[in-house]
C-alpha cells in the first residue's frame, strides 16, 4: 500500500509524509497534487493574520477547540519565518497549542516560509489541498507575524481574520491600505489592555462607509485568547461570513479567482524554469553583464535580444 493510499484511508502519519513531500517539491509532487485535487474542495479555509505577538496561535488554538467540541475535524497550518541568513527556522506556534487533544481529531503542521515573503510558505496552498483531501472540515491557517503588505493569505482562504491588539495604532493606521483591507473579521485580542476601546472605535469608524455599501458588515470583536473570552463570538463571526458570502455568490467567485491565480502561478513557475534552462544558461551571460557594466549595452536591450534568441516553441 502506498503512502497516498494510507492518506486516503485516514492515517495521520501518511498525511504528514505527503505534506513533507509536497513541501520539499520532491520528484513527482505535481502528479501527487493531481491525485489530491479532485478530492479537495469541501473544507472551509480560515486564515488568521496580524502582527507578531498579537495572539494568532493562541486564538487559533481557542477556535480549534470550539470546533472540536462541535465534533468537527480540524487541520491547522502554522507558519513561522525562515532565516534568510542560515535557512533555519524556529517554529514555535505549537507552544500555544499544547492543550489540543492527541486523539487524531486535530492535526497541526508547522511550516517555515523557506524564502517566501507573503506571510505564508510557497507550499502552504498545496498543503491545504492535502488537508482538504484528507477530510478535515476546517483548515485554520496562521501566517507569520505580518506588517502591512504580506497578504498571500487571501489567495489561500475563504475567510480572513485580522488580529490586532490595543497597541496596533490609531485612526490613520486603520485607514491604510494592505492588511486592513483584507480582513473579513477583525479580532482585537488582549482587549483587557488599555487602548482597546480606542482602536475598536477607530475601526468602527473606518468600516462605517464600507458597511453601507455591502451586505457583509465586518464585525470587530474584542477577544482575550488567554482567558478564552469571546471565542464564541469570533467563531460565530467566521461562520456568518461563510454563510453571507455563500449567499451572495462571493464565496464561489473568490474560489474561482484563487484557481485562476493558481494556474497562472504554475505557468509562471514553468516559464521561469524554461527561462533558466533555455535562455540564461545557454547564452554568454557574463559577456552581456560586462557590456552593460562598461556602458556598451543596457539591461533592456540585452533582455530583448536574449528573448529573440530563445528557442521557444
Amino acid at each position: 500500500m502506498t503512502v497516498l493510499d494510507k492518506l486516503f484511508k485516514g492515517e495521520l502519519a501518511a498525511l504528514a509524509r505527503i505534506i513533507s513531500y509536497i513541501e520539499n517539491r520532491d520528484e513527482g509532487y505535481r502528479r501527487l497534487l493531481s491525485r489530491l485535487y479532485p478530492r479537495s474542495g469541501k473544507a472551509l479555509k480560515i486564515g488568521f493574520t496580524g502582527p507578531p505577538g498579537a495572539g494568532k496561535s493562541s486564538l487559533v488554538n481557542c477556535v480549534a477547540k470550539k470546533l472540536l467540541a462541535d465534533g468537527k475535524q480540524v487541520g491547522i497550518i502554522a507558519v513561522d519565518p525562515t532565516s534568510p541568513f542560515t535557512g533555519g527556522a524556529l517554529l514555535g506556534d505549537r507552544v500555544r497549542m499544547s492543550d489540543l487533544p492527541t486523539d487524531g481529531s486535530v492535526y497541526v503542521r508547522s511550516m517555515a516560509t523557506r524564502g517566501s515573503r507573503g506571510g505564508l510558505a510557497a507550499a502552504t496552498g498545496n498543503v491545504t489541498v492535502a488537508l482538504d483531501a484528507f477530510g478535515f472540515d476546517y483548515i485554520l491557517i496562521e501566517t507569520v507575524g505580518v506588517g502591512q503588505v504580506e497578504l498571500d493569505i487571501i489567495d489561500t482562504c475563504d475567510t480572513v481574520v485580522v488580529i490586532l491588539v490595543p497597541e496596533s495604532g490609531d485612526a490613520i493606521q486603520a485607514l491604510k491600505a494592505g492588511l486592513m483591507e483584507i480582513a473579513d473579521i477583525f479580532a482585537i485580542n488582549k482587549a483587557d489592555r488599555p487602548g482597546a476601546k480606542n482602536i475598536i472605535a477607530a475601526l468602527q469608524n473606518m468600516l462605517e462607509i464600507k458597511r453601507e455599501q455591502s451586505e457583509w458588515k465586518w464585525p470587530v470583536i474584542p477577544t482575550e485568547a488567554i482567558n478564552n473570552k469571546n471565542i464564541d463570538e469570533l467563531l460565530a463571526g467566521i461562520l456568518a461570513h461563510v454563510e453571507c458570502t455563500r449567499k451572495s455568490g462571493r464565496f464561489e467567485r473568490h474560489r474561482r479567482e484563487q484557481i485562476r491565480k493558481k494556474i497562472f502561478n504554475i505557468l509562471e513557475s514553468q516559464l521561469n524554469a524554461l527561462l533558466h534552462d533555455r535562455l540564461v544558461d545557454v547564452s554568454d551571460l557574463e559577456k552581456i553583464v560586462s557590456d552593460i557594466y562598461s556602458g556598451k549595452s543596457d539591461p533592456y536591450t540585452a533582455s530583448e535580444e536574449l528573448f529573440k534568441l530563445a528557442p521557444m516553441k
Partner: protein
Amino acid sequence: MAEKIRVLLAKPGLDGHDRGVRVIAAAFRDAGFEVIYTGLRQTPEMIVSAAIQEDVDAIGVSILSGAHMTLFPAIRKLLDERQADDIVLFGGGIIPDEDIAALEKRGVARLFTPGATTEETIAFVREAVSKRGKKEDIM
C-alpha cells in the same frame, strides 16, 4: 530541492528549566534546521504525536528533573508502537553515566550532558539523520 532537517525539541514532565533547550533551539536554527519547539510540560504522548504530525527527522528531549529513566523509555515505546521507529531520539540533561549506558541500550541514540558543545549536538543530528531513510512508495 535539498531536504531540510526537521527536529522537534521538547521538555517532558514538570521540569521547567528551559534555558538549555532554548540554547539548543537557537543553535539548530542557526545550523539551518527547522526546529519545532513544543514547550514545557509535555507528556510522551504529546511529544510522539507532535513528532509524527510534523514528520520530523529527530526528537531532542531535555530533562533536568531526574525522571529520564521513565520518560525516555516511554517515548521510545510510543515511537515503536506507532511505526515511527525511524525517528532519531536523542536528549540532554543531568544524567548519570550508568543511566546513559542503560538508555543508549534502550533506543536513545545519544545523550548529552553539561559541557557538551552545540557543535557536537549539531554534528550528531546531521550524522544520525543522514543514516535514516525509510524507503516507501508515495503513490
